[in-house]
């Protein structure tokens, strides 16, 4: 049987972290009474007009720059038409012709063979980033055969990030999205929490034989976590391969991932190809961005967005932070990867290192193994740790000075975890875990043991 080459592309919608919506002044907030964060424009009442939120444009520019994109100094807004109860206007304002950023790239790392010891770097091309409106939320009430509509989310700013089909499996898709999530969180352009719908991923999947043209692709929606993303993509690849090997064909359709069953199913309401009848948004002139060279002299400061100004103020991206950690502390790339993968853990590690004499290379084990496993067990973040960086550093100092053994240190940590306010030294004294340093005392103890177990000693000496 000829081998199959799976091809995976992603469309990611990230909700912009802003106070107000993309084209109106209503508030952006996750949980609020239904229809309380809705303006007349969001409800599409006649006579209302869109007014672009500056912060949303800055968020998109930051994200574009962080993903190595070319920022389009002139981008346009369009209307994408379709009917749905949670889209009151009957169209979504998006950027279909000329989006704000194009042609970027994202580098991400993967472990080979599930071992953390070998990491490989891959790159996925970013086709474009566009600004667009989010829709409201539909709550389906099947018992009463109706849909309840909440427009609180309608009009919230989104950045759609389109990743080219450079990925080949669930693991790659998941790793790419995870890295994008970390970048967005570092920039602050989106909080990117998937569970709160701030990061939504649709996967485009197809398979083909090497050397042949790409196969028909399906779109997979309703993926609610990074873990499910990997599962959904891998399931769909398998489904397509099996279908084709059994002589079937793949329909160009939209499928939903069912997390309970672990499979994809055709989606209702999405049969047949959609015709969105794109047209320019007549109420919005082109969006013009400037850089240091093209900065107009006489314009109101507040009306000007300077790409270079934003670029100069970009924070260190995760990849740069990881390199710095490796360089500064002599830890392995896998270690810095793990540190950045957990919220607040890198800071915690650096704080411990600052407060202890133990070498950073030795501290890393305590943070990544002992501390992190406790945090995971109790579903806590580093910031919520009952064992502060100060306490851990204190404990590691005792170990470093050889006042206790490694085993004893683990015991003390277990005790510290209870959060009873005792210091490591107090616990060591309480449980008598101090290492004996006195040579004479040690000799006496050994002699007593030997004396008590003469027979065993003779056996050992005889071999």
């Amino acid at each position, binding site marked *: 049987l000829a081998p199959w080459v799976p091809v995976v592309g992603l469309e990611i919608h990230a909700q912009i972290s802003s106070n107000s919506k993309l084209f109106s002044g209503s508030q952006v907030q996750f949980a609020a009474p239904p229809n309380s964060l809705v303006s007349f424009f969001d409800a599409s009442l006649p006579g209302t007009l869109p007014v672009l939120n500056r912060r949303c444009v800055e968020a998109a520019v930051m994200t574009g720059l962080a993903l190595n994109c070319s920022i389009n100094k002139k981008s346009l807004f369009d209307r994408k038409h379709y009917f749905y109860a949670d889209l009151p206007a009957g169209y979504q304002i998006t950027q279909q012709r000329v989006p704000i950023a194009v042609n970027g790239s994202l580098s991400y790392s993967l472990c080979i063979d599930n071992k953390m010891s070998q990491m490989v770097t891959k790159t996925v091309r970013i086709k474009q980033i566009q600004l667009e409106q989010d829709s409201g939320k539909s709550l389906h009430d099947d018992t009463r*055969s109706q849909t309840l509509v909440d*427009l609180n989310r309608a009009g919230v700013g989104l950045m759609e990030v389109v990743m080219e089909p450079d990925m080949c499996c669930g693991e790659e898709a998941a790793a790419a999205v995870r890295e994008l999530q970390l970048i967005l969180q570092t920039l602050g352009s989106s909080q990117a929490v998937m569970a709160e719908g701030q990061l939504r991923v649709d996967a485009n999947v197809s398979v083909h034989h090497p050397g042949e043209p790409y196969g028909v692709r399906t779109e997979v929606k309703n993926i609610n976590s990074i873990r499910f993303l990997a599962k959904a993509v891998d399931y769909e690849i398998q489904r397509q391969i099996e279908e084709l090997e059994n002589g079937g064909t793949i329909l160009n359709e939209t499928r939903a991932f069912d997390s309970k069953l672990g499979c994809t199913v055709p989606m209702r309401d999405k049969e047949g190809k959609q015709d969105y009848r794109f047209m320019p948004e007549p109420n*919005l002139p082109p969006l013009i961005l400037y850089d240091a060279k093209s900065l107009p002299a006489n314009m109101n400061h507040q009306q000007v967005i300077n790409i270079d100004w934003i670029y100069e103020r970009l924070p260190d991206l995760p990849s740069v932070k990881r390199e710095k950690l490796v360089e500064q502390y002599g830890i392995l790339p896998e270690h810095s990867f793990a540190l950045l993968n957990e919220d607040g853990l890198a800071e915690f590690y650096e704080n411990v290192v600052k407060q202890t004499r133990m070498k950073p290379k030795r501290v890393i084990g305590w943070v990544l193994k002992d501390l992190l496993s406790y945090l995971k067990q109790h579903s806590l973040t580093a910031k919520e740790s009952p064992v502060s960086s100060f306490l851990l550093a204190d404990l590691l100092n005792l170990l470093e000075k050889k006042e206790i053994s490694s085993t004893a240190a683990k015991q003390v940590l277990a005790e510290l975890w209870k959060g009873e306010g005792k210091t490591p030294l107090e616990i060591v004294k309480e449980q008598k875990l101090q290492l004996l340093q006195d040579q004479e005392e040690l000799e006496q103890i050994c002699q007593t043991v030997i004396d008590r177990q003469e027979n065993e000693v003779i056996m050992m000496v005889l071999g």
Partner: protein
Amino acid sequence: QKVSVEVLDHLEHLALVDFRDSEGVERLEKAIQFADQLHEVNTDGVEPMDSVLEDRCLYLREDDVTEGNCTKELLENAREKVEEYFVAPPGNIPLPKLEERDTFLQGS
């Protein structure tokens, strides 16, 4: 120029219009004819203009919360509501296929 039944059917699906009778279709064809006059202008090498606002400055608003909190007013126009939610039919009810619906286009 006549517009084919397939295109008319497609338009009825997309825009949820009902051409109703031959007069409706004729009106459409005349409108297309009228717009086609634009082809008489030579636009070679001319950048398309898609908005008379293209030379205007796109106004940027500060990211402040200035609207919202008018649930009662918004729901006043709703025919049906359930606890401050708008009520809509369950998902899109697709227009039946040409053969299955009562449309003037059937006879064409």
